[in-house]
């Protein structure tokens, strides 16, 4: 018995890219069945979809529609029961947990609804950590870069604070800084503004928008149609199937959920903040 699972040789992990015009993320015939005591539940019913470089995609749908399950297939948090997920050259549904973690370190930044900073590390240490894990940059460069990223999200004065000592918005900003620490081509955000006030939510949007300008692909799960409308492309999931996929302005009958209290305001604020963020981001990335 292998106590810790197979220890794979450190294969060279490349950053995911796609030839011009080709999709960066290719999902084919994705079926996901959850086995429960009440019987099998099919969360995804054969979804095939592509995502391209520099796209800002919002994934929307009712609770239980399968939207989080869909992005979990991209992050490798979950695996399809059948079907394939290819990102760049990597067939990620074939990777082991440990390989997936290594791959993810270089290619994917994840932003959670509840920030998920490691509570025992300061904000700057949280940002440095992905670089250490992926063995990117020299130690001195890591520190400089982490500080630049924290400045980018307006946290330079809070760099050495512990997560418990800053606000939710600041934690989420630090989490975004952490997500882009290794300059990954893809960022996946699951309800990133669900726990934030409108000003913080706007800041997050501005950041995302500018990251897209820089060539990142952002896939964001949200309930909020106003915020979803800020993305360039919106994918609507219903009952395990993609029922709409198009430019965000085309999205009709977006939601089953009410917009969050600050969402509309956030959308406006986002435009105002975008310019200052753009400037900072240029330096960081």
């Amino acid at each position, binding site marked *: 018995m292998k*106590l*810790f*699972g197979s*220890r794979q040789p450190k294969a060279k992990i490349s950053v995911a890219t796609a030839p011009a015009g080709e999709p960066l993320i290719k999902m084919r015939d994705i079926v996901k069945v959850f086995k429960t005591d009440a019987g099998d539940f099919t969360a995804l019913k054969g979804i095939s979809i592509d995502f391209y470089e520099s796209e800002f995609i919002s994934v929307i749908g009712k609770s239980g529609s399968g939207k989080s399950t869909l992005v*979990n297939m991209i*992050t*490798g*948090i*979950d695996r399809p029961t059948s079907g394939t997920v290819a990102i760049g050259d990597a067939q990620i549904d074939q990777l082991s*947990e*440990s*390989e997936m*973690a*290594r791959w*993810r*370190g*270089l290619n994917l930044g*994840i932003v*959670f609804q*509840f920030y*998920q*900073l*490691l*509570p*025992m*590390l*300061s904000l700057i*240490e949280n940002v*440095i*950590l*992905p670089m*250490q*894990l*992926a063995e990117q940059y020299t*130690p001195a460069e890591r520190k400089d870069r982490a500080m630049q990223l924290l400045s980018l999200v307006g946290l330079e004065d809070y760099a050495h604070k*512990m997560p*418990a000592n800053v606000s939710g918005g600041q934690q989420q900003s630090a989490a975004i800084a*952490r*997500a882009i*620490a*290794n300059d990954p081509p893809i960022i996946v955000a699951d309800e990133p503004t669900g726990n934030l006030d409108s000003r913080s939510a706007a800041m997050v949007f501005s950041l995302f928008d500018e990251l897209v300008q820089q060539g990142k692909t952002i896939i964001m799960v949200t309930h909020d149609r106003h915020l979803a409308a800020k993305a360039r492309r919106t994918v609507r999931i219903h009952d395990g199937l993609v029922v709409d996929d198009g430019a965000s302005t085309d999205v009709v009958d977006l939601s089953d959920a009410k917009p969050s209290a600050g969402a509309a305001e956030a959308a406006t604020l986002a435009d105002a903040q975008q310019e200052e963020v753009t400037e900072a981001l240029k330096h960081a990335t």
Partner: protein
Amino acid sequence: MRPRYRKVIADLWDNKARTALVVASITIGVFAVGMISTAYLVLPEAMNRGFVAASPVNIKVATMPFGDDLIKSVSRIPGVGAAEGRQTVEVRITKADGSLENIELIATKDTGMHEININNLIEGKQVPDDNELLMWRDGMQTLGFSLGDIVTLELEDGTIRKMPIVGVVDDLTHDNATMRQPRGYITLDTVEWLQFEPIYNNMWVTVDRDTDDGNYIASVSAEVQSKIENSGRPVFFVREFTSAVHPMASIAQAVLGILSILGLLIVFLSGSLIANTLNSLITQHTRQIGVMKLIGARTQQITAIYLIEILAFSAMALAISIPLGAIAGYELSKVLSTEINVILPDRGAVPLMPLVVALQVFVGLAVPLGVGIFPIRRGAGITVEDAVTGGGKAANKESKSWFDRTMEKIKAFQGPMVIALRNTFRAKGRLALTLFTLALGGGIFIAVFNVRIALHGKVDEITGYFAADVNLDFDRNYRTEEIEQFAKQIPGVDYIEGWSITLGDIHVEGQQATKEVIMFAPPADSRLIEPVLIAGRWVRPGDQRAIALNEAYLSVNPDAKPGDQIQISVNGKEKTWTIVGIYQFTGLPEVFGYTTYETLSSEINSKFHASSYRIATQDHSLAFQQDLSAQIDAHFQKNGFLVKEAQAGGEFRETMTEQMDTIIWLLLVMALLTAVVGSIGLAGTLSMNILERTREIGVLRAIGGYNSIVVRLVMIEGLIIGLISFLLAAAVSFPISTVLSNVITIAIFKSPADFTLSPNGFLIWSLLVAILTTVASLVPARNAAQLTIREVLSYE
């Protein structure tokens, strides 16, 4: 089944690792209680039963040869219960390995008709026929024989006699824990065959009542001595013994006492383990408790549910630990019984003892309930809001100690190392209990090695008074110069000293009776003795009738001090001697005195002569000593000397240290048991930490933390705990060593030990703690590495 009971069963069954951890924690404590209390009941009971059944002697008088008439006459003295005659002779026996050793043979007319010191038959015949030998059990082991072997005896004139061993017996009245000369039992006719006179030279007497009253025994003894002297025979020496309590009872009590303290410690440690696990269980169940409250459960009802869970844990632990404790208790008694000369009843005759079971049930219920009630009350008393929000507002106001702030400032480490370091100190209460358990286990473990060295030092100190590398005894006096010349012809002999040894009688002021003193007289400039003086000084060249007495003399005359003048009869002449010092010996009741060879040889008219020699060899190893003893024996015999015995001094030491080592092994087993409790505690702590940090591990994976990073985090945390516990263990080992050494040496030798430090204990424990922490971290680390982010999200 009512839902609340279904919940209890589900809680027990769903988290089997946690259930196993709590049950194991309770089991170890209850097991230790069962084992030690079984030994506590079985051993003293067997000890006293065997001792009383053997009808131990109260008065031993050595005199000139006598017959049945004197025995009859003594037995008619008021106060005498029984009187018997014994002939005690000493011959040389060839051991199974071919070397020679002296054996004491005790003879009576009919060994089957004894009323005093009745032997307990182990195997073979109870009564030897003529020219047959019954052997004492310990002697069989020392000499390397078994039942049916033919032994070879060498008589004074070189005649060889062969005798079969027809039986193995145990003398349950045996009173000497430290020096065991082989002993055998023969008939009086056999004595004649061995070229000794077939008559008695020892009168053994029991008193008719008050066998624990030393004064009563002394008064009867005075009458017996008077009767013997009136028959025209001198009394060479008298020894008196009380017989209500086994002579080894105090040692047994001390060992059992130490084991009991260790047992209580294990119960205490297992209690801390249980507290840790139950704390974690309640923390994990906070939301469930909130939900139960939300649907109407009252605090008392929730408390009852968790108390029932604790009772279920206890029931499982008791089912395992009661039978195991009984078996281990019997085996522990068995190990101790061989050391303290006790015959145990068969295992089958020792059923589960109600008192032990009651104690185990009490400990098995009281400890978990006692330590569990606090987290349960805390958990059951939580408000619904706090329960469903994971602690509510209070939890967000995290107060930080200076320690937390210091940890946050540590910049020397990076990444996983700093995470592991800070993680270690997050659950401080849990860490403290784990460290306490591991450090105490380690402290005891290290201390046991120090105690071993201290005990061996004590043995060296004691054997140094009478044993050199080789003790050479002759059947008669020879000129010391002559013996020296012959000895130096043997390669390996460094130097030799001739010692005068004789018996004297000290006239104790205000008492009619005298106290026998065994007088040793090495040369005044002897290099062999390093005395431990309680008062005064050692004898010096130029001293005139100066004597240093052992501490036993203080029980005869508590006011004795250096400078006192006492009357001692030596060789029939009473003279004034000056006490120059009191030295520490073994705590034996016999009085030993050291004077100079020059003084004593003059008193006994044997100047320049001695029958007892001490030889220092160039190599002090036991093998060398044994080899040289054989050479010395052969060399002197070949040259016509009447050698009584040439014995390696290391053999005395070996015999004594073997017994000490049995106690050490017992302590070591208990220390290991403590260490196992500590390791279980560590494994539990790490598992609970991981359970509570599942989300963080998932996040780490989400940002690129691969398997070995996750494993490393847990392993480093385990090793940090191991390292801190080692440092604490090293610190607490000092006081533990002192207390343990003193308790044992005072029980056995009636004097405290010198504090000694053994690097072995520290080294072995450092290795062991590294292994234990690694093993204890492996499973939690593996579990952590196998966590997937999806599981983390479902945990959320």
